[in-house]
């Protein structure tokens, strides 16, 4: 069983949802990002997504794009992403990378898989790669025993959901609103039916990302999903903080609030 699957299984055994937390590598700095992610793990994040900052993050909203721009302006390279993975994985948390496809294509899918595995990474989330266009990643991830997480959306047809979940390993990422990433004040009415449709197609755990930013929303999503994915709200804590220490503390507080949310399924 992969480390991601283990984290979901452990949460399920405790009758709660897993908490998945995201930050892009190199934001607000290389070490600052590692510090924040480590603090989030200590405060209850079960699975960490390390974002690979990209110049054209078309599926992300302004919050994450701002963080990615800052990381790139700071000179963040793939080596820094892998170093972040190594440091976070050393905490014991299942750690995956979230990346747009072109950086991996340019780096080489096999080489990326080898280096990610060597850094202790558990897998890859690929928001702009569909399994039917991803033969080289399917092969490379198989060769290195890496999880691969593809996305499904409310607009996905039953055929596309079946095709996508068949290629997933670790968990399935349900983007439960039509739109870019970003914190939202209300959770989505589209999410529960989407999760239900995915469940008909797979036994894999289902993580839901829809702009959750507090424990109350996390509890609501935990009522129907196996994992609650939070990204923009953590980024926001770091963007708004007066200094790194305050930002890290803010991420830890948010993680604790969310961790209690996923334990009180509503």
């Amino acid at each position, binding site marked *: 069983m992969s480390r991601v699957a283990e984290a979901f299984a452990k949460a399920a055994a405790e009758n709660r949802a897993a908490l998945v937390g995201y930050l892009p590598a190199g934001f607000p700095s290389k070490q600052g990002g590692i510090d924040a992610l480590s603090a989030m793990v200590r405060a209850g994040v079960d699975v960490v997504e390390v974002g690979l900052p990209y110049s054209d993050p*078309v599926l992300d909203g302004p919050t994450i794009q701002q963080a990615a721009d800052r990381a790139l302006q700071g000179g963040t390279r793939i080596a820094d992403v892998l170093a972040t993975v190594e440091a976070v994985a050393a905490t014991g948390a299942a750690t995956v990378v979230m990346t747009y496809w072109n*950086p991996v294509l*340019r780096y080489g899918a096999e080489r990326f898989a080898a280096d990610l595995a060597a850094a202790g990474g558990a897998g890859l989330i690929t928001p702009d790669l569909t399994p039917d266009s991803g033969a080289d990643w399917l092969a490379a991830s198989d060769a290195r025993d890496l999880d691969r997480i593809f996305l499904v959306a409310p607009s996905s047809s039953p055929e596309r959901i079946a095709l996508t979940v068949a290629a997933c390993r670790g968990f399935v990422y349900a983007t439960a609103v039509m739109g870019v990433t970003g914190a939202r004040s209300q959770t989505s009415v589209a999410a529960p039916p989407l999760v239900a449709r995915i469940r008909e197609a797979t036994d894999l755990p289902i993580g839901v990302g829809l702009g959750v930013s507090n424990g109350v929303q996390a509890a609501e999503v935990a009522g129907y999903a196996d994992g609650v994915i939070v990204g923009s709200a953590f980024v926001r804590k770091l963007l708004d903080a007066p200094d790194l220490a305050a930002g890290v503390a803010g991420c830890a507080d948010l993680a604790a609030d969310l961790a209690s949310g996923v334990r009180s399924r509503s």
Partner: protein
Amino acid sequence: MAALDELTAEFNAAQADPNFRAELSGLLGSYTGRPSPITEVPRFAEHAGGARVLLKREDLNHTGSHKINNVLGQALLTKRMGKTRVIAETGAGQHGVATATACALMGLDCVVYMGQEDTRRQALNVARMKMLGAEVIPVTTGSKTLKDAINEAMRDWVANVEKTHYLLGTVAGPHPFPYMVREFHRVIGQEARAQVLELTGRLPDAVCACVGGGSNAIGIFYDFIPDADVKLFGFEAAGDGVETGRHAATITGGAPGVLHGARSYLLQDDEGQTMESHSISAGLDYPGVGPEHAHLADTGRATYRPVTDTEAMDAFKLLCRTEGIIPAIESSHALAGALVVGRELGPDSIVLINLSGRGDKDVDTAATWFGLT
């Protein structure tokens, strides 16, 4: 994916529907003013080694460029799909103006995303779009140019896909866009091929077009592809020169990659980050290129060459002064490249150039370039 599948199905159905084709063809005639004429330019040709030079006058279309061909097709498709809102990206503003025009004509809501940098250098077109009732949203992310406008349009589309059609203006992006946009622009090459035959009694030796995303080029190239003796030349924007790194010559200076849902040549660094492109021409300032051009380059059927800002502006001025035609700066890249092609092919050759747009929008830029202000 669902929206792309829907669009593919609807486009294929529309292409097979005689009513759709008749409606589009009627608009292209009575509204756009097609067929656009061919103009022979002998005084300009004196600088092209004596070759006969013919211009395909897409600049004379309503709204001032070839962009209207594709826009009318996709706007009709929007109505066919029952959608009421159109979004578009624009660089030079020609696609934005054409889209705003078609939306006014058909009663569709229109939002145009335009890089903040481009709203400044193409202020006239911003005013035109607003006059036509469109909302123009300046894009402040990334390089603040065309690629970032596409990013924002894609973000809007995924959030509003039920009622909104993304009216993409070039032969890039995910399928079916490169295919569909080419089909709507094929009329350029279909007309030009017949017009050159009628005027000269034979096919041209070379067809020249500028290439940013590549819509006008694929439009004029496509029906010449089976004519093996007709050379096809695409001219990319070399900005300050490809060797300076400040350019938009994607095929000349890029490497294969994925951007905006298409795999093609791409200006990118060694880790796959998109690099900023540079060109005096807002419409060619895009770090990607349509995948079909990548294919034509790889198979050798078409040749792609860089043209610098200076070379393009020299050709811009030459056409103004020899023929009384003010070309778009985009199209001036094709004019500059064609001058060289004419000299290579010699005095008996016939060179066809797609004059994809008129230069009214570029008067400020050109006046500054030539020190006329």
